[in-house]
């Protein structure tokens, strides 16, 4: 992405820019995602970067398999999703778990801080437990200033220590969905 554009996007609380830089530093080449409002900016940064393959998915479990294939072919990847998508990936995580495929999963939370939609609450509240039950190491972050360093630590655990790691980015950070918009 052009430097000018990056600079323009960079604000004090603009954590997606910092997270994108962490992904670049980790040599992430494939970013698979089901969109979430909280990931919008990060997804746009990935799409704009020719060295990163953006892979929009129809469902989150596809991404676990895509990143397994990517790793088999020598590329690191990241999987972006909303917390509701965590429910979709559980069985497929078994493949990555058994084969010790490094997985870096960035989850923006719903059904969390200040949620207005009751239908989001069950999966949101089950997200961390479900991931842990499936063998994923979970880092939760609710402080904007700590997101990038948390993703950096997760990337090291994933790619250097060969683990499945999810960073849960709290609704307190990504913002509560405005029902009136």
């Amino acid at each position, binding site marked *: 992405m052009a430097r000018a554009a990056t600079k323009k996007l960079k604000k004090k609380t603009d954590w997606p820019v910092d997270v994108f830089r962490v992904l670049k530093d980790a040599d992430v080449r494939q970013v698979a995602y089901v969109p979430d409002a909280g990931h919008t900016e990060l997804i746009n940064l990935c799409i704009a970067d020719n060295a990163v393959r953006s*892979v929009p998915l129809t469902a989150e*479990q596809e991404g676990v*398999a*895509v990143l397994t294939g990517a790793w*088999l072919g020598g590329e690191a990847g990241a999987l972006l999703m909303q917390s509701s998508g965590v429910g979709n990936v559980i*069985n497929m995580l078994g493949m990555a778990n058994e*084969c010790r495929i490094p997985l870096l999963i960035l989850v923006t939370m719903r059904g969390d801080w200040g949620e207005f939609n009751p239908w989001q609450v069950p999966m949101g509240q089950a997200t961390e437990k479900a991931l842990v039950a499936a063998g994923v190491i979970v880092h939760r972050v609710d402080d904007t200033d700590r997101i990038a360093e948390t993703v950096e630590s997760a990337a090291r655990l994933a790619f250097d220590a060969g683990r499945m790691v999810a960073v849960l980015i709290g609704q307190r950070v990504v913002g509560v969905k405005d029902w009136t918009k």
Partner: protein
Amino acid sequence: MPAKTKITLDRRKVVARILRDRGDALLVTGLGAPTWDAAAVGDHANNFYLWGGMGGAMMTGLGLALAQPGRRVLVITGDGEMLMGLGGLATVAVQKPANLGICIMDNQRYGETGMQDTHTEFGVDLPAMGRGAGIAETAMVYTSKELDGAIAQLYDARGPVFVNVKVVPKVQPMILPFRDGPSIKHRFRDAVLGET
């Protein structure tokens, strides 16, 4: 629904015929019979066998094809496995991996669980779904002659290629490759990358 056509092809012979021409192609097999079929042909360091992850074979092939654009990547899986990951057809069509060939061994049965009918038994047409998603290069195969043409597509046509081979629903002897996930992964990465 298409008219019923007699199914005569033997899956083991079909997979052996396909893999005869593999050259340096990389192979991902879907869980169950396709993995046993590949093992029956002979173990190979360029094989990645899925023993689980149902619905994930084609997408594993996609990630691999994107990471290794200079290599042909072949996915051989079953109709039941494919049916569990149909959304992936849309994802593959959008990515347009020129080096990816997908081949479904369609016996119209869930072979590992007691040969129950899958949806293809009732006429669900997987290549038509692929075309609907935007995969231009597809084939439905019933005969040896059609298979020859489809194999050329799988290896040489601009991907993504999606081939569906109708095979008789006969239970075959189970030929099991090794199954330790890290070992399969390390061997495959060794073969592809020259290191792990």
